[in-house]
């Protein structure tokens, strides 16, 4: 095992960066800050079919979720694509298509809206409403009024009840799957 500073290749020097070990310990303050900014620059994602991908907002075993811009309308949407892409097994595709069916059947003001289901580059893709919000636990921590929190709680209960009446169980209801928008309206996500 290596001990002490870990040298990286000096070939990096020809890109205008000073020689430094991989931890950055020899960098000046301004060079370290420049490295920090570059490392955190969002990578340009390009397009998925006609959609302009803006950022990756989540990924799990089943799907990768992007914030994207819709062509024509230019509105911001959420795209969910099977994580396995062209390697998806028939079982994975069937499960994903079932999620699409389930979500499309749920129409409730506190459940994220499905705009469309499409096949993009040979893969099923779910196009959903983009909710500009924060997870409900972070939102609740900033509320001074108990009644506002209770109102949001009741709205979430009504959304879940709506799903239950249609035979759909969320299975992963947690704060990060409930976003609260600027009007304090909660939106339940990820019924997959």
């Amino acid at each position: 095992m290596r001990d002490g500073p870990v040298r990286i290749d000096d070939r990096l020097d020809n890109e205008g960066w000073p020689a430094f070990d991989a931890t950055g310990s020899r960098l000046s303050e301004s060079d370290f800050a420049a490295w920090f900014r570059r490392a955190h620059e969002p990578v340009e994602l390009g397009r998925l079919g006609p959609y302009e991908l803006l950022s990756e907002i989540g990924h799990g075993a089943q799907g990768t979720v992007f914030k994207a811009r819709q062509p024509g309308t230019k509105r911001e949407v959420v795209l969910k694509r099977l994580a396995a892409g062209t390697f998806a097994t028939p079982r994975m595709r069937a499960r994903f298509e079932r999620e699409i069916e389930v979500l499309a059947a749920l129409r409730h003001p506190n459940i994220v809206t499905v705009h469309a289901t499409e096949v993009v580059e040979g893969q099923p893709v779910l196009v959903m409403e983009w909710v500009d919000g924060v997870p409900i636990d972070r939102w609740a921590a900033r509320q001074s009024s108990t009644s506002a929190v209770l109102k949001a709680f009741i709205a979430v209960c009504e959304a879940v009840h709506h799903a239950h009446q249609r035979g759909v169980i969320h299975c992963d209801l947690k704060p990060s799957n409930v976003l609260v928008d600027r009007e304090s309206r909660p939106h339940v996500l990820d019924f997959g």
Partner: protein
Amino acid sequence: MPPQPTRPSLLSRVRDPADQAAWAEFEATYRDLLLRYCRRCGLSAADAEDVRQIVLLRLVRALPRFRYDPAAGRFHDWLYRVVRNAIADFRACPDPASRAVLSGSEFERMSIADASPADPLWEQEWRDNHLRRAMVALRETCDERSVAAFERVMHGASLDEVASELGMSYDAVQKSVRRMRKRVEGRIAAQIREEDAPDA
């Protein structure tokens, strides 16, 4: 005496295909690196995801037999070669339906001795990935105000501005930022030591 790892290395653990937690950690560790490198090589986001899948499928097959000796070559150089081969195979196979059966037979015979020095772009992405991972870990363990002060200064705010925004003294911000930088450097060094830990 070099420090000893406190647990089996991640590479040792992913050799057991049943260790789902190790695979999840491995995936989380290298996901961003693989996707960013593929994108910088000109692949679309969807194609980058497919190449990532090829790389993971090949690693699942190869890692149980893989023996790591950092003296013979470093893991991230070996991983670079795996990724380059996967990108080349992907580009050579325009039919999406056929990509699922890419054999990667040459890859399966590769050992750590086949690790090749990476191109500067990979090195840069590998280094950047360590910095991002260190920050993710420190955001979970350090107090919110120290992290906020450090990130604001890294993004170009002056110490005066940050002191005013966060209700701290100038000296307190300066000390906090220096302390955070030391933590970042220490965290990256620990990550690299773990990555380079030889087989037990």
